[in-house]
């Protein structure tokens, strides 16, 4: 069941290809509608789960009825974090999470309009790039002094800022919005903390996501900014699993528990839960990975820079084709951020799993192929 009025769909294109009008609504469908009935899946859209009764193994629905379960999977996702602005009218502050949000945003992004985007993370930057492609003037306001501050290293932040600026995106870094100005219910200005008044027709806020963990919390399931699950996506209740953006999960390759907002993470946990429920072998653990498309850039990230002590830049940021490797003290690859560099991403992902120790000077030299770098590394440091 899901609270949205439509069957499950792909969210990533909402800020990219779909927003630019390159793909239509039908291309977003995760599965065709016939799929559900053909596979004995009783899909209930526009249905909200109100409460879980774990001892009775039932879920109470918004319709008032209760559903019994042998196993329950919470895939409640996350919602856009909201920030209060003085003078805000609720219908002028847009966010981008659902297809309905994206529809509203797309309608407002017309050539010649002025958009202010609050938040210089992936959503903000992808929307900025798409809006520019549609001929919209864009200013991004970011509270931190650099872009992607939560999720990327400084080299990458600097690169993306320069690339976006070169394509007409304006930035106010280290600033935040204090209030909004309206005229007859229409947004006219966004007022920044230093007093600057930015003329604006559209305001999009993309400042992170909050896990939808209330249902789990109310049922007494431990949560810590995400429903806590183990490596098989199980909560403390063996009958209840949780997957995707709403969870905080362990990662076998890294110490600690992480809340990952990504499609691959949701798919991996879905496979874990399905395998556990069906008594199958759990799928092999994968390093987390992410991707983003902005202008003609393809950013692919594998791993997390946890316990990374050094970085190696391979390739040339000026040429918009480079990768940043994050290495541990023992020269094992912990993470790679690759811009228009699939070999570095693909090989880096394999190196993370294999805990490959690399020769830094060879890795730094783009004339030596990634295959060669990996081969040399394996020879000297068998794992």
């Amino acid at each position, binding site marked *: 069941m899901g609270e949205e009025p439509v069957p499950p769909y*792909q969210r*990533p*294109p909402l800020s*990219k*290809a779909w927003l630019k009008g390159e793909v239509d609504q039908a*291309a977003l*469908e995760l*599965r*065709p509608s016939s*799929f559900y009935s*053909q*596979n004995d899946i009783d899909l209930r859209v526009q249905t909200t789960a109100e409460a879980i009764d774990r001892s009775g193994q039932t879920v109470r629905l918004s319709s008032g009825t209760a559903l019994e379960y042998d196993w329950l999977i919470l895939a409640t996702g996350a919602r856009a974090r909201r920030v209060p602005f003085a003078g805000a009218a609720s219908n002028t502050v847009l966010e981008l999470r659902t297809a309905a949000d994206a529809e509203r945003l797309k309608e407002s992004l017309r050539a010649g309009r002025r958009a202010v985007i609050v938040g210089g993370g992936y959503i903000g930057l992808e929307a900025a790039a798409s809006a520019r492609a549609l001929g919209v003037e864009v200013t991004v306001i970011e509270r931190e002094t650099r872009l992607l501050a939560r999720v990327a290293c400084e080299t990458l932040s600097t690169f993306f800022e320069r690339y976006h600026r070169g394509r007409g995106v304006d930035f106010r870094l280290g600033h935040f919005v204090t209030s909004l100005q309206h005229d007859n219910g229409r947004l006219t200005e966004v007022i920044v903390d230093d007093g600057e008044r930015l003329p604006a027709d559209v305001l999009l806020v993309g400042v992170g996501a909050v896990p939808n963990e209330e249902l789990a919390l109310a049922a007494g399931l431990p949560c810590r900014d995400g429903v806590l699950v183990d490596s098989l996506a199980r909560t403390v209740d063996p009958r209840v699993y949780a997957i995707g953006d709403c969870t905080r999960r362990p990662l076998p390759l890294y110490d600690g528990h992480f809340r990952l907002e990504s*499609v*691959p993470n949701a*798919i991996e946990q879905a496979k874990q839960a399905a395998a556990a429920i069906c008594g199958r072998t759990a799928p092999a653990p994968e390093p987390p*990975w992410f*991707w983003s*498309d902005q202008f003609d850039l*393809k950013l*692919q990230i594998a791993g997390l820079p946890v316990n990374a002590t050094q970085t190696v830049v391979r390739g040339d940021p000026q040429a918009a084709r480079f990768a940043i490797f994050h290495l541990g003290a023992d020269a094992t690859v912990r993470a790679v951020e690759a811009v228009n560099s*699939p*070999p570095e991403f*693909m*090989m880096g992902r*394999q190196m993370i799993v294999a805990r490959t120790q690399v020769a830094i000077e060879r890795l730094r030299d783009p004339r030596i192929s*990634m*295959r060669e770098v990996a081969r040399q590394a394996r020879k000297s440091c068998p794992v």
Partner: protein
Amino acid sequence: MPRITFIAADGVERTVEAKIGDSVMQTAIKNAVPGIDADCGGACACATCHVFVHSSWMPRLGEMTAMETSMLDFAQGVQPTSRLSCQIEVTESLDGLIVSTPESQH
């Protein structure tokens, strides 16, 4: 409508009708063909829609982009007939196309 046959790693064949303009990956997803994960939804970012094209069809599919070539270069179990099915667009001339899906995606 062009028809495409998918052969699973266990040898089971499924022939489905494809819509012109869709990718071969979308065709598989729409018809619930197992063996094509397509984790990234067609962004050429993940290489989980890897297929082996029956060799007689290889020349008829057109050139690969640099992005597809380099993603495939480092995917697992790659053969000379490997393609990423999200990058193959269905046209009338692909009627009868046969592709196999790798074991790792089952």
